[in-house]
């Protein structure tokens, strides 16, 4: 595969690099649970680094310094809307939409005729054609995966892509069930259109989304034989959360959604299969259709609470799932943060940006207990490494396979619940995959099972030291200073055990700071347990 170019955008017209040392000051000792904005004086290298990781996929030393110099308001404005960075709209002709198209009327007729006259040859042809198209579509879903992965690596608007990842986990739909790569692509676009937009719009969009209609079997749900799958998950997972509805609400909601199906790539409301009778949903009675069902749900206060809880969990700090811990079972500072965010969300009528702005500016977000304590999902690990260390991408197929081995096969979430996340990413074997895919990015050393030839694309990590040289000329030649600087860049801290091991590597390999030594540092750092956190 050809090497994709990594065109990452640094904030435009970077402010002068502050004269503050590259190694940041110690963390502020006070632990705030306040949702009030962080003071500019408390927003430094560590906070900017934290913001870049959580609201994106990490930053290079120059990006971190620039955001730090801007202060919290401008930095958060920038990550929410990177100004003149182009909003990239994917072209709709990127992928072939016809691979899995339904047979035309003529084709169906021909097939039926062949069956009637028991023409085994003709029938075999149809079968083979079907198998061929399924094979093509399997290839195309791989292309869609790599395309999205490349976008996340290259985008000048990382928060948009991170929100697409959030929605993909929230409205989880798997190719394995729907077997239509173009519909997966369309759904991915739906998430991108509403990435930082309005949750209500997205929920209305999802009941008309072919991939979702197929995944939760609503495409065959009809009057008198309602399939409850979509109605159940809309309430349980997508909007209200367990406990916010009754079994009867599900049954009635399923009736409202009957006839919501699709043809080819378009939503179709099949009036003949729709149950237009009276329903009672969440205390309201009427001849509701799917849109009315969504409207009733959006009037429930549970929506703000569930969605902001999930946003908080994704961006700020892990929370146990709702079914394990109700809101009142959470620690008090988190309860008050969640209340604050939920009220912002309902106040903005489900606009996403105000909630994220509130969170990213809050003192709570920068509470030391919330920093470097989130386990990177595999996508964050891989995309974040490429973006923050500026490594070559090397081979998107290998990166994509590694995501799968680490438990995050994009477009194939394990269930409608999405990925569990947190500690579930980590076990003794994913630990090795995580270490090994980083070794691959840094050196081209391929994971086992692939052609053993090392990639000849060399990685030059020395430009990462530019900020160190600017802040403290000469330090970039000191193995000890470089070790500390690299540790603060990669894991946000420089534990003495790690500094000691890194400098011992420098001692055994000649003692001067070379490209190879810095790669050696990075190999060791990225294999450290702490590197799994952000």
């Amino acid at each position, binding site marked *: 595969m050809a090497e994709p170019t990594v065109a990452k955008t640094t904030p435009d017209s970077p402010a002068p690099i502050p004269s503050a040392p590259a190694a940041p000051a110690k963390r502020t000792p006070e632990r705030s649970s306040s949702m009030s904005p962080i003071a500019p004086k408390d927003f430094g290298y560590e906070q900017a680094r934290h913001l870049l990781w959580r609201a994106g996929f990490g930053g290079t030393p120059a990006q971190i310094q620039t955001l730090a110099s801007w202060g919290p308001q401008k930095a958060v404005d920038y990550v929410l809307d990177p100004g003149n960075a182009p909003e990239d709209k994917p072209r709709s002709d990127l992928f072939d939409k016809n691979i899995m198209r339904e047979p035309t009327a003529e084709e169906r007729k021909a097939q039926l005729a062949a069956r009637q006259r028991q023409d085994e040859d003709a029938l075999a042809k149809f079968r083979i054609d079907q198998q061929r198209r399924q094979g093509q579509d399997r290839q195309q879903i791989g292309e869609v995966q790599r395309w999205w992965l490349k976008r996340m690596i290259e985008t000048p608007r990382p928060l948009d892509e991170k929100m697409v990842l959030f929605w993909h986990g929230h409205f989880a739909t798997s190719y394995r069930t729907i077997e239509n790569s173009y519909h997966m692509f369309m759904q991915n676009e739906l998430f991108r259109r509403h990435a930082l937009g309005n949750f209500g719009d997205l929920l209305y969009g999802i009941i008309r989304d072919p991939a979702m209609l197929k995944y939760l079997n609503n495409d065959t749900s009809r009057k008198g034989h309602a399939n409850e799958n979509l109605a159940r998950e809309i309430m349980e997972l997508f909007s209200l959360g367990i406990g916010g509805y009754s079994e009867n609400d599900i049954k009635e909601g399923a009736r409202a959604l009957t006839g919501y199906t699709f043809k080819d790539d378009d939503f179709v409301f099949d009036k003949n299969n729709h149950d237009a009778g009276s329903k009672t949903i969440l205390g309201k009675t009427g001849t509701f259709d799917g849109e009315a069902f969504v409207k009733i749900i959006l009037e429930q206060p549970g929506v703000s609470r569930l969605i902001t809880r999930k946003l908080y969990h994704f961006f700020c700090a892990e929370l146990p799932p709702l*079914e394990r811990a109700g809101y009142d079972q959470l620690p008090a500072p988190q309860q008050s943060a969640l209340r604050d965010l939920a009220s912002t969300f309902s106040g903005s009528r489900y606009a996403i940006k105000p909630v994220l702005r509130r969170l990213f500016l809050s003192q709570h977000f920068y509470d030391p207990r919330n920093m470097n304590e989130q386990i990177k999902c595999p996508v964050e690990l891989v995309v974040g490494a490429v973006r923050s260390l500026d490594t070559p991408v090397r081979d998107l197929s290998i990166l994509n396979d590694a995501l799968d081995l680490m438990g995050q096969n994009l477009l194939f979430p394990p269930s409608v619940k999405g990925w569990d996340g947190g500690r579930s990413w980590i076990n003794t074997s994913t630990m090795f995959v995580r270490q090994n895919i980083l070794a691959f990015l840094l050196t081209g050393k391929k994971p086992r099972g692939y052609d053993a030839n090392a990639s000849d694309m060399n990685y030059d990590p020395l430009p990462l030291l530019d900020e160190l040289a600017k802040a403290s000329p000469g330090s970039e030649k000191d193995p000890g200073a470089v070790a500390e600087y690299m540790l603060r860049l990669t894991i946000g801290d420089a534990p003495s055990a790690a500094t000691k091991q890194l400098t011992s590597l420098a001692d055994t390999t000649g003692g001067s700071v070379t490209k190879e030594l810095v790669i050696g540092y990075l190999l060791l750092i990225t294999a450290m347990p702490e590197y799994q956190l952000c």
Partner: protein
Amino acid sequence: MDLHNSPAFTRRKFLYGGLTLASTAWTIPAFLGSSADVMAGMLGQGLSSTPGVDDNRILVVVQLGGGNDGLNTVIPYGMDAYYKARSGIGIKQTEVLKLTEADGIGLHTRMTALKELYDNGLVSIVQGVGYPNPDRSHFKSMDIWQTAERDATGDGWLGRYVDSECCGYGKGESGKPEPAKAVEPPIAIGRTAPLALQGRSSKPVSFESAELFRWSGEDIHEALREPYHALNRRGQDGSAGSDTNADFLMRTALDAQISSDKIRKAVAQKSLVPYPGNELGRQLQMVGAMIRADLKTRVYYVTLGGFDTHAGQGGAQGRHGNLLANFADSIKAFYADLKAQGNDQRVLTMSFSEFGRRVAQNASGGTDHGTAAPMFLFGPMVRRGVIGSHPSLTDLDQGDLKYLIDFRSVYAGILEQWLQADSKKVLGATYKPVVAIRNG
């Protein structure tokens, strides 16, 4: 120092100082405590099994994910209501594999391998297994089965079993570990470790394929080796009482180092019999290899997914039938392997799914989430036959089967009669054990 073209160097000697760790703090994985002797044996004498040893009993759990349609697995072909409710996907009487000593009950057409095992006395079927007030959410119901609790908030039931063995405590108690009694953590084949195996102190080992089970950076430059191992063994310094994600990662990194050589060596052995190429076959083949290598692990966990057949599940042939064929063929190969090893008497296998499916098929040629379903137990030690009666197909609860046997009674039987553990301690309540083991 050239990081790109260094020749690989010989791998580090196994354990690398780990043998001295057995007496340190409880944060050390149980793996370390008891396994030094095993590993020494493996390294010194190569892989060996210990045929005929039955005081070291093993449980293998097969999870059928998605909600297996029990009615089309163990088929009540003697009940008219079955055919009425399933005009499209019902299995014709002539296509059912009828079971002896089980009136009107048979297996799905594609399960010939299990029929054979049944005839050879290796299969026990517990009918109508479920729990009160059933939950039809995949996740909740799976958690209920894995925790053995109706509210599904606690640790996994097998994690609690290992805790109670190694550390003298079970549900709700705290106790001090006794390293001398430490047992091996359970092993799950798969990307994630199932909740069932998560104990308070005992954490499972899990991996998808054994070749990916080491750091490739070791081959890049020799000078990286020592710092790497130093940094990845900091977990042994312990961090008692603290359980941040960083502590968790530290412990897992240490675990990974210890398990790596041991397991790769076991799985590299060629199996004694061929296994089917499907996902479950591959997993059971690995389990068979680890049992043969005499790992002291007592609990293994494998998973076959895809049973959420809301649409187009098929009848005697088709999607559901393919899954059942994979299941049956893999189990048969597994027991052939164990028998060839001389280990079959030591290994009990249990299969379950989070729920069965509705009695009536839906408009999409599939079935929606239901309630009770049969469980299988495999091995030469089981009571051959069908336990319990088939739930009524006419006396239903809103279109769903009423369960007759609580799944925790099946667990209790396995704990008491097979693992010789105190089921009350593990399950937190007394359940009347289902007697599925001979001479139990």
